């Protein structure tokens, strides 16, 4: 046993897979201890807030202020406020008044503004310019004037008696707040999803749930496959015929189709994560049964098994002592494969709307389903779908790597 373990951990592929899987597992275990928010809590009002640090505006006004004189602050401010459409509009107008196109660089905010100040005049009339365009340029010019001047912002509150605004404070352009001194700051490393839920918290919980689904489904499938394979392979005769018949039947009839039918029949209300896991397990034992049966048949007539029979050991004893140890490595590898296919199966089912009901727990498949329904992939909201795909891929990849590593250890013919 010790020797086998040492050999396994000498395989580069196995170790890589093992490390990736362990990191995922550790994240799933320790993240909820640090961040205890409920993963399904809706915090954002609106869909798909981009990743970043969210600072409460009110609190930052009330936070202690520091004056920092930074040279590039003004340029950055203007660059940040000038949207791409505005830049394109400015360019259009400049070309219209006769500035050579080569001189205009929309990405260089400073030179663009200089050109604008030098060339813009509210009485400009370019042929083909509509009144709406003219008004747009007047508004744009006004907001640019505000940006260029270094005036601050006045903060006012409404007097409850007179309903008049009373200035209470002024925020200068060179004033800064320290983010640590702002009372309410929320970091959303992966933004929010279509419901306004924190994607990272949800993703980690979902990974945990999906892993548990895989575990339950894998255990059930391996258990059924092992029992059927052992019975068929060892007993032979009519039992074997029946088992082979059933196994062959379900090898050809796709498990995925059965999964769709059963999940649909159970109905949305009854479909918890555990039920889905059980259904996946019940439809995916075929591979294990086939592999185990083939192995047992080749073991059945070995000398040590015959010796055991002659010594009058019971069938249970022979199977557990003389056969199981020889097929243990196959069973472990089959189990690892079952685990990763079960996680994929859950994701596929959920995308079709046949996964666990949405209100209990997040799963990787359900996150993918909502991202697809709300078209996150077409709207460019990468944080809603890409981490999910990557999560599924990494889990499956690490499990497959471990499997390949084990395969190379136990099948010397495959070794490099």
């Amino acid at each position, binding site marked *: 046993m010790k020797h086998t373990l040492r050999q396994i951990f000498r395989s580069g592929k196995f170790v890589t897979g093992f490390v990736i899987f362990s990191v995922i597992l550790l994240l799933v275990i320790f993240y909820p201890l640090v961040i205890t928010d409920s993963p399904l809590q809706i915090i954002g009002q609106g869909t798909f807030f981009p990743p970043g640090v969210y600072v409460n505006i009110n609190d930052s006004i009330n936070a202690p202020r520091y004056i920092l004189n930074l040279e590039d602050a003004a340029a950055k401010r203007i660059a940040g406020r000038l949207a791409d459409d505005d830049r394109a509009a400015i360019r259009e107008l400049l070309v219209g008044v006769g500035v050579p196109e080569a001189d205009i660089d929309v990405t260089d905010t400073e030179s663009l503004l200089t050109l604008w100040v030098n060339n813009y005049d509210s009485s400009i009339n370019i042929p083909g310019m509509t009144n709406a365009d003219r008004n747009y340029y007047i508004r744009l010019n006004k907001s640019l004037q505000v940006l260029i001047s270094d005036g601050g912002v006045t903060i006012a509150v409404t007097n409850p008696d007179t309903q008049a605004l009373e200035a209470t404070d002024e925020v200068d352009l060179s004033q800064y707040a320290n983010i640590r001194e702002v009372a309410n700051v929320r970091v959303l490393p992966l933004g929010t999803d279509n419901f306004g839920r924190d994607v990272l918290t949800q993703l980690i919980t979902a990974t945990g749930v999906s892993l548990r689904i895989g575990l339950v489904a894998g255990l059930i499938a391996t258990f059924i496959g092992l029992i059927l394979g052992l019975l068929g392979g060892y007993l032979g005769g009519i039992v074997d015929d029946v088992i082979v018949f059933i196994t062959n039947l379900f090898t050809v009839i796709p498990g995925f189709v059965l999964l769709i*039918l059963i999940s649909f029949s159970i109905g949305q209300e009854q479909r918890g994560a555990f039920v889905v896991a059980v259904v996946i397990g019940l439809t995916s034992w075929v591979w294990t049964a086939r592999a185990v049966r083939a192995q047992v048949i080749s073991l059945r007539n070995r000398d040590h098994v015959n010796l055991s029979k002659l010594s009058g050991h019971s069938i249970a004893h022979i199977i557990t002592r003389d056969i199981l140890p020889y097929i243990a490595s196959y069973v472990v590898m089959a189990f690892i494969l079952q685990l*990763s296919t079960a996680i994929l199966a859950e994701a596929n089912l959920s995308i*079709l709307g046949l996964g666990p009901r949405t209100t209990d727990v997040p799963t990787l498949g359900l996150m993918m389903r909502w991202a697809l329904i709300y078209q996150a992939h077409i709207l460019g909201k990468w944080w809603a779908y890409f981490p999910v795909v990557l999560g599924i891929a990494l889990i499956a990849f690490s499990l497959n790597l471990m499997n390949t590593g084990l395969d190379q250890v136990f099948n010397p013919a495959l070794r490099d």
Partner: protein
Amino acid sequence: MKGYRRYFGGKFIWFLITLVVAFVLNFTLPRLMPGDPVAAIVARMAQGMSNATGVQAIYEQYTELFGTNKPIPEQFVIYVRNALRGDFGYSISQYPRTVADVLRSSIFWTIGLQLPAIIVGWILGNALGALAAYRRGQFDRVLLPVSLFASSLPAFGMAVVLLVIFGVSLKWLPTSGGYGFDLIPNLSLSFIWSVIVHYQLPFWSLVLITIGGQAIGMRSMSIYELNADYVKYSRFMGIKDNKIVRYVFRNAMLPQITGLALALGTMIGGAVVAEVVFSYPGLGSTILTAVLGQDYPLISATTLILTIMVLIANFALEIVYGFLDPRIKAAQAD
């Protein structure tokens, strides 16, 4: 050829048995569903009606139409009889369209997408896997992890990644549908071009997924074969490498065909889900709408069609295998 007839006959009987079992499963499983789907459409139809007798009359008419008022065994007999005639009744969610009509408009998209994708992916994957086993070294060291990762990606994941890169970011290809939304299916040049353009992303995402899995399998099989005694013996005999390699890969390919037959169900399942990502008008999208509409005649018929597709493909592979495997050939000649 006479021996072959027995081989194929046996395979065909097996095909029929699985077909019958698939039929029974397909019929019974959705009907175990709690709740009355007919009540749901009647509620939708009778919205705003205050006359209880009228609602009752509509309800009875619909149960008659869908046959849900008869005992289950009788429903099964009717179902089988109708299914053999290609009549799967009315779709509940898209009433008054018939299920056959809904399926007829989606099945060709799915077959047209998946059959070529799986064949191309299988061929490319096997070629790459064989090359990796033969060349080893750097090529192998790169190919193996890459194919492992590609085959770990779910089909819908690959679909999303390709769609975002080539459809959304680079804007080279359209992101959804089987053809331009402004076109009506006909045989005009612009329609065919639109279909070809819309075909690329779904097709290549399925091909890439298939390549990964097949390359790994072919690599292992080829390494086994390359280490076999007959290869060493042939080398001692001074037979040219080219000739040996041909034998090796022919032998390694046989298990790959069996592997393809076994994996077919899973592959088609994954591919059907990938269709949903592209809103491709195939069976995947049909299942999605059927699930949303609690439409059991449609679900049942779609899964039945999927099963039959897999069964036929399996049967076809068995036949190909029979011709390729020299052992079967020899056994039939006796």
